[in-house]
């Protein structure tokens, strides 16, 4: 039987044969990611932890990133409880505040590898398909159960194939592509499905792929994945992981897909998701000129070195509008350091930007850059839900780092094409 990527991975991890969509299988993931929510997770299973301990001290990856440095006594106490848990159970893979956003860490530190299975109590866990990992989000209760037992159930998903051809034009980015796709497919168009990218993917870097797979959940996908190719292999080499450390799994040529979509990358233009839904996508040109008050470049979607570099290129020697707050957030300490060494941070600071420590920052509205009623923010994040940045009467627009950077100069939403 010809199989999709998801069917092959779940066959490998369940040990069962001839899997069909909707079948339920038991699996043990290679890793379980949790973050600041680890405090609430271990709270649920205090007695069991005392009695049985944890299933494995290598499986969990814990990254403090959501509200860092702690904003209140309560968040500080959460962090303290997590550190105590880490020490008590000798958790090997712990990254304290300031190391970076959890999804960036999982990829950058080499936990995500081709054909591995990673679950995480964060919806953007689907990001790791950028390097060929099968990864998906779960809730806190399931993470608690996994800490104790190391196993859970997964339903074999149907799969959707997205064929890409040609390459993106200058000034057009992976963010524009994924926004275009989500706008077409809708926020529920890939519900419960595994999304596979095929075709001319070799011009998309691992960073580009990360932006695309990260937003898989915004169209409802269970996971989202690129095939492992030279781009993946070279990236993994660059972080010290040679080919002998992993095997790659590819879908069969005649595997069954419930839907197929074709995209000509050369036809994509700058796109923007308008309030209050990620699939409310329009070409930037359609709302050009709209006045904004805050610009945000960062997050697990677009806080990588290539993103900061694009912003710096646009902002070099320029000043942002006096009516704008430009918040920039490198997705990890490594990225921050690279950006410093390349002079990117200096350029951004000189333009008038505020640099925040590597973490989730204002993306989820818990601290650092919340919005006031009536304000509009253009952001490189992955969600623009009502209230997402702390205020239900504010508006969030999602776009590429280039669109956000050029908009910061003008104080209005602006198409980046001419600036590049």
């Amino acid at each position: 039987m010809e199989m999709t990527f998801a069917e092959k991975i779940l066959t490998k991890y369940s040990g069962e044969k001839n899997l069909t969509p909707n079948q339920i299988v038991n699996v043990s993931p290679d890793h379980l990611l949790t973050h600041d929510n680890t405090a609430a997770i271990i709270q649920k299973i205090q007695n069991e932890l005392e009695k049985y301990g944890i299933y494995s001290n290598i499986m969990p990856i814990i990254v403090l990133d959501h509200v860092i440095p702690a904003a209140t006594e309560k968040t500080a106490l959460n962090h303290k409880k997590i550190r105590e848990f880490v020490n008590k159970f000798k958790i090997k893979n712990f990254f304290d505040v300031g190391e970076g956003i959890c999804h960036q860490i999982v990829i950058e530190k080499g936990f995500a590898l081709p054909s591995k299975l990673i679950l995480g109590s964060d919806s953007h866990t689907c990001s790791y398909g950028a390097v060929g990992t099968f990864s998906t989000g779960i809730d806190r209760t399931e993470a608690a159960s996994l800490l104790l037992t190391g196993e859970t159930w997964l339903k074999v998903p149907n799969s959707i194939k997205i064929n890409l051809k040609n390459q993106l034009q200058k000034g057009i980015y992976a963010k524009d592509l994924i926004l275009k796709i989500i706008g077409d497919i809708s926020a529920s168009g890939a519900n419960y499905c595994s999304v596979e990218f095929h075709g001319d993917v070799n011009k998309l870097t691992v960073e580009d792929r990360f932006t695309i797979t990260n937003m898989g959940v915004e169209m409802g996908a269970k996971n989202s994945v690129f095939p492992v190719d030279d781009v993946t292999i070279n990236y993994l080499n660059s972080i010290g992981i040679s080919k002998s450390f992993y095997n790659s799994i590819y879908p069969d040529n005649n595997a069954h897909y419930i839907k197929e979509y074709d995209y000509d990358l050369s036809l994509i233009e700058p796109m923007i998701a308008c309030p209050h839904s990620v699939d409310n996508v329009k070409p930037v040109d359609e709302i050009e000129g709209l006045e904004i008050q805050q610009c945000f470049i960062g997050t697990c979607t677009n806080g990588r070195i290539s993103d900061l570099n694009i912003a710096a290129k646009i902002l070099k020697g320029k000043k942002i509008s006096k009516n704008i707050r430009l918040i920039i957030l490198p997705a990890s300490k490594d990225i921050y350091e690279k950006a410093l060494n390349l002079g990117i941070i200096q350029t951004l600071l000189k333009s008038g930007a505020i640099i925040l420590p590597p973490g989730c920052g204002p993306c989820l509205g818990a601290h650092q850059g919340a919005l006031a009623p009536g304000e509009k923010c253009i952001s490189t994040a992955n969600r623009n839900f009502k209230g997402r940045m702390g205020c239900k009467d504010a508006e969030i627009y999602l776009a590429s780092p280039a669109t956000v950077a050029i908009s910061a100069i003008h104080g209005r939403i602006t198409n980046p094409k001419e600036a590049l």
Partner: protein
Amino acid sequence: MKVWKYGDNINTDMLFPGKYTYTCSTAKEIIPHLLEDLDSSFSINVKKGDIIIAGKNFGCGSSREQPVLGLKAVGIRAIIAESFARIFYRSSINQGLMLIESPDAVREYSDNDYIELNINKGIIKINRKEYLFPKIPKEINEIQNSGGLLEYTRLKLKKKNK
């Protein structure tokens, strides 16, 4: 019994704002903020046994489980929607909150219609029409019958460590 009716893509920020995610985790802390930015009357007026009817993709967005914990704690009997987002769906299984996918029933229902729910038989009755919904797979039923995933896990651990 009241029916709370909402539209498509009711996301997790509408169900429970992200700004409270790391400060509220118990039912008592969650309930006052339930549906805060969607329907401010909900947390005040919701009663045990009420039903929610919604459109497509209910619960999309974050993996936060406060929406499910909160809706279960206030006694929502079932959520009937055209479709659900997957993490919300799993989370509801884990907490024993009843979800029913029935696009036809959702389209049929208008405000103040008569509605009756027979969960055991898998039937929703709206006015005089009946809509069948599929049974839960047995693996998942086991989790729900144990009283949720944590109880299920506790039983499994007890058995294993006997």
